[in-house]
C-alpha cells in the first residue's frame, strides 16, 4: 500500500487545471474543457470514495500517512486522514463535480478560467483537510483565498469588487496571527508536526495566547458573530458555483480547524474559553436568525442562516462531549449538502428571472412543480426536520449542550424554532402565494442537468437523515480518541467540581 493516494487526491485537480490551461480551445470548444473538468473531479470523487471504503474505521491512528522532507530540517510535507477529515474530503470531492455541472447556466464568459479556478481551489481544499503539519495546513488554508477572490471578483454580481476585497482582507487579517502562533509553536516544541504535537502537548502557560491566535483565524472563516459580515456580501455577489463552494466547504475549514487544532492542541485553553465561544455562538444563532427573517434577498437569507448553523457547530465543538463534537461534524456535513443545494436552488430561479429579491417571486408551485418538490426537501433539511440530515446534527449538538449547560441549550433550541420560521416563510413567499409577476409565468421547470444535480443532493440528505450510521461510524473512534487523548472528560469534570 505504497500508492500515495492522498497526494494524488490533492494533485489531480491541479493536473486537470494545467491540462485545461495548456490545451488551446476556441470559443466553440468550451464544452470540451468542461468535460475534462468533470472527468477529473469525478475521478477524484471515486478515488476518495475508494479511500473511504479502504479506510479502517476502527483504528484511532491517522491512516495513509505520507511524509517527505520539504523545507529541510524544519517542515515536512505530511498528510494523512482520520475518521473526521475523511468525511470532509468526501464532501469536497462530492460538491466540486456538482459545481462543474452547474457552470453552463451561470457562467457566461471565460468558462475555461472559471474551471481552472475551481479545480485549483479543490486542490487547496483537499489539502486543508488532510495536512498533518501546521505549516502545510496554513499554506493550503491561505492559498484558497486566491482562487476564491478571483471567482467572486471576475464572475460575481454588481458589487463584486467590494465583496471580493472584503472577503480577502477579512480572512487574511484573521489568519496572520495564526502564522505567528504556528511559528511560536515551532520554537516552543521544536516541531510543527500535528501527530507529534498531540503526543508532546503544549505547555499550559502558552496555550491561551496561542488559542486566541488560532481562534482569530477560524472565527473569521467560520464565520462567528461579530466578524461574519463578509459572508453575506461574498455570498450575494459570488456566482452560484462560488457560493456553493464557499458555503459547503470553505466555511467547514474553520470548523475542522477548531476540532483538529484548537481542541487537539490546546485543551486547557479551549476549556478556559468555553464561555466566550458559548456566548458568541448563541448570539450567532439567535441574532443572525432574526436578521435572516428580515432579508429580502434570497441569497442573503441563506447566508445568514449559514452563520446561524455554524453557530450550532461551534457550540457543539466546545461542549467537548462525544455527542456535541459528533453532532458538530454531522451538522457541518449536512449543512455542506443543504446549503449547497439551497444556493443551487436560488441559482436555478436566478438564471430565469435574474433577480434574487423574494418579493419578485410567488406562486412558483403551479409553474415549476418539480422545483417546488426539491426546494421543499432542502428547506426542511435546513430547518432540521426529523428524517433529514439536518435534524441529526442539531439534535446531537443540543444533546451534548444539555449535558453541560441547560441554559445555553435552551437558548440554542430557540434558534431551531427561528430557523424553521425563516426557512418556511421563505418557502411560502417563493413557492406559494399569488402569481403576481407576469415574468414568473414564463419560467420553465427544471432542466435535465438541474434535476440531476439537485436530486444528487436530495439523496444523501434523506439517506443520512434516516440512516446516519455510516457517518457516525466513521467519526466515532476518532472523536472518542480526541476526547481521551486530551483528557477532555477529566478536565470537564474538574471544572464542574465533580
Amino acid at each position, binding site marked *: 500500500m505504497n500508492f500515495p493516494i492522498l497526494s494524488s487526491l490533492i494533485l489531480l485537480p491541479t493536473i486537470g487545471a494545467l491540462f485545461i490551461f495548456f490545451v488551446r480551445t476556441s470559443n466553440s470548444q468550451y464544452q470540451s474543457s468542461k468535460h475534462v473538468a468533470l472527468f477529473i473531479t469525478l475521478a477524484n470523487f471515486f478515488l476518495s470514495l475508494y479511500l473511504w471504503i479502504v479506510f479502517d474505521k476502527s483504528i484511532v491512528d491517522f491512516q495513509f500517512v505520507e511524509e517527505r522532507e*520539504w523545507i529541510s530540517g524544519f517542515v515536512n510535507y505530511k498528510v494523512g486522514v482520520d475518521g473526521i477529515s475523511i468525511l470532509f474530503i468526501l464532501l469536497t470531492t462530492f460538491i466540486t463535480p456538482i459545481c462543474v455541472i452547474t457552470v453552463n447556466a451561470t457562467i457566461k464568459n471565460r468558462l475555461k478560467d472559471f474551471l481552472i479556478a475551481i479545480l485549483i481551489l479543490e486542490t487547496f481544499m483537499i489539502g486543508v483537510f488532510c495536512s498533518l503539519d501546521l505549516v502545510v495546513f496554513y*499554506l493550503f488554508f491561505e*492559498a484558497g483565498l486566491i482562487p476564491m*477572490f478571483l471567482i467572486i471578483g*471576475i464572475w460575481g454580481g454588481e458589487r463584486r469588487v467590494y465583496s*471580493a476585497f472584503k472577503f480577502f*482582507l477579512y480572512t487574511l*487579517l484573521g489568519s496572520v496571527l495564526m*502564522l*505567528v502562533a504556528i511559528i511560536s509553536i515551532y520554537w516552543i516544541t521544536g516541531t510543527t508536526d500535528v501527530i507529534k504535537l498531540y503526543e508532546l502537548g503544549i505547555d499550559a502557560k502558552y496555550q491561551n495566547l496561542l488559542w486566541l491566535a488560532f481562534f482569530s483565524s477560524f472565527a473569521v472563516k467560520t464565520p462567528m458573530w461579530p466578524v461574519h459580515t463578509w459572508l453575506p456580501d461574498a455570498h450575494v455577489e459570488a456566482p452560484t458555483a462560488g457560493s456553493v463552494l464557499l458555503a459547503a466547504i470553505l466555511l467547514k475549514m474553520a470548523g475542522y480547524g477548531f476540532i483538529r487544532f484548537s481542541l487537539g492542541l490546546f485543551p486547557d485553553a479551549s476549556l478556559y474559553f468555553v464561555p466566550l465561544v458559548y456566548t458568541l455562538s448563541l448570539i450567532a444563532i439567535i441574532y443572525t436568525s432574526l436578521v435572516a427573517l428580515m432579508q429580502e434577498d434570497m441569497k442573503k437569507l441563506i447566508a445568514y442562516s449559514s452563520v446561524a448553523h455554524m453557530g450550532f457547530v461551534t457550540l457543539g465543538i466546545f461542549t467537548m462531549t462525544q455527542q456535541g463534537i459528533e453532532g458538530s461534524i454531522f451538522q457541518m456535513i449536512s449543512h455542506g449538502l443543504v446549503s449547497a443545494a439551497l444556493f443551487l436552488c436560488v441559482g436555478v430561479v436566478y438564471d430565469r428571472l435574474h433577480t434574487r429579491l423574494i418579493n419578485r417571486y410567488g406562486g412558483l408551485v403551479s409553474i415549476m412543480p418539480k422545483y417546488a418538490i426539491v426546494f421543499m426537501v432542502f428547506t426542511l433539511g435546513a430547518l432540521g426536520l426529523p428524517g433529514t440530515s439536518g435534524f441529526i446534527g442539531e439534535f446531537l449538538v443540543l444533546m451534548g449542550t444539555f449535558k453541560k449547560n441547560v441554559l445555553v441549550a435552551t437558548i440554542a433550541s430557540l434558534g431551531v424554532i427561528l430557523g424553521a420560521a425563516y426557512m418556511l416563510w421563505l418557502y411560502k413567499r417563493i413557492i406559494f402565494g399569488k402569481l403576481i409577476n407576469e415574468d414568473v409565468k414564463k419560467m420553465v421547470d427544471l432542466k435535465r442537468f438541474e434535476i440531476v444535480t439537485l436530486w444528487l443532493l436530495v439523496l444523501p440528505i434523506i439517506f443520512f437523515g434516516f440512516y446516519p450510521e455510516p457517518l457516525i461510524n466513521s467519526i466515532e473512534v476518532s472523536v472518542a480518541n480526541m476526547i481521551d487523548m486530551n483528557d477532555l472528560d477529566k478536565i470537564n469534570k474538574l471544572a464542574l467540581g465533580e
Partner: protein
Amino acid sequence: MENLQLIIPELFISIMIMFLLIFGVFKKNSSQLVYNLTTVSLVAALALIINLDTQIQSSLFNNSYNIDSLARFMKILLILSGIFVMLSSSKYIQISKISKIEYPILILCSILGMMVMISSNDLIVFYMGLELQSLALYVLASFNRDNLLSTESGLKYFVLSALSSGLLLYGCSLIYGFSETTNFNQIMINTKEIEYGLTFGIVFILVGLAFKISAVPFHMWAPDVYQGSPTSVTVFFALLPKIAALTVFIRFLYIPFYELGDQWQMIIIFLSIASMVFGAIAAIGQKNLKRLIAYSSISHMGYALAGLSTGTIQGVQSSITYITIYLVMNLAFFSCLFMLKRNNEYYENIDDLSGLSKNHPLLSLSLLVVLFSLAGIPPLAGFFAKFYIFVAVINEKMYFLAIVGLLATVIAAFYYLRIIKIIYFDPEKERFESKHNLGLKFTLVASTFFILAYFIYPSGIVDIISQININ
C-alpha cells in the same frame, strides 16, 4: 600576486570597462554592439566567479578585501540580476532613444562598485566602492536628459545621496577616531567598551546605509527617482544597489559592531517597522506603477531589515533569502512593465492595465502571480520569503515586530489586490503590442516560473544560503 587570482572577476570587469569605452569611441554607431558585449562580459564575469574555488575564505590586501561565502553568493546574485536587467531592457533603451555607448558602460562601472562594496572589509575600501556605484547611478538616473522628470530625478538623487554619503563618511571618521583603525575586524577588537563617540559613529553609518536601501525615514528620494528615471534604470535601481547595500549592512552590523548589538538593535527595529508600515500605507494612493513599486520596495526592505535586527546568523540568512526572492519578484514585475508597449510608447499608469486579462491572458496571469507573491500569499515564493523572516524574528521572541510586520502585509495586500482588480475585473482597453524580444520573454517566464514553482522544492535556496557564514 597570488591574491590577484581571487579578484579576477573584478579585474575582468575593470578591463572590459576600459576596452568598451575605447571601442565605443572609435567605432561609430556601436551602441547596440557595446550593449551586447556588456551583457556577454557580465556572463563571463559570472562564469569566473562560479569558477573560483568555493573553499577559499581569505582576506586580501592587508585584510581589507574579503572573499568569503557571503561575498561569493551576493556577487553571483548581483551579476545574475545584472544580466537579466540587461536582457529585459534592451528593447526599451532603443525605443526610448537612450541607446548610447555610455549607458552599458555606466552599468558596468556601477556593478564594479557594488562588487567592491560587497567584498569590502575596510572603511576606506567600502567607501570607494560606494562612491563608484553612486556616481554611475547619478548619471544613469538622469540619462534621458531631454525628459524633465528624468533630469529632476537624477539631480534629486545626487543631492540626497551626496548628503547621505557625507553622513556616512562622518560616521566612518568617528569610528576611526574612536577605534584607531579602519579595518572591520580590528574595529571589533578595539571597541569592547562603549563610548558616546562610537555610538554616534554607528548612528551616522546606519543612517547613511538606510539612505542607500531607502528605509523610512530616509526614503524620500526613492519614489521620485523610481518614477522619473527611465524604466530600464528603475529596474536597475530596484534590484542591484539593494543587494550591495544589504551586504554592507550585514557586514557592518555583524563584524565591526557585533559586540555593540544593544546600540543598534533598536535603530534597526525602528527602521524596519517604519518602512514596513509606511511603505504599505503610502502605496495605497499611488497611480503610477513605478512609484507604487518604489513604495512597495521600501516596505520590502523593512522586512529584510527585520531579519537583520535579530542579531543571529539565522536572521541574516533569512534576510538573504528574502532579498533573493525579492529580486526575482521585482524582475518579473518590471518585465511585465516592459511589455506594456503600444506604438513605440510605454505605459506605466495603473489605469493602463485596465482589463488586461481579456487581451493578454498570459501576461496578466504572470502579473497575477507576481502581485500575489509580492503580497506574500502562499504558496508563492513571496510567502516563503516572509515566512523565513518571521521564523527568525519569533525565535528571538520579538513578537511585536512580527505582528506589526504581518499586519503590514495585510495593508499591503490591499494595494496589490487593487492592481489585480484593475487587471481582471475592470473593462478592457486597447490592446498592447504582443511581440517582444526573446530576452524579455525569457526573463519573464523564468522569473514567474521560479515564483510559482518555488514551493515544490523550497530547500534548494535555503540550503545554499545556510552555508553562508560571517566569521
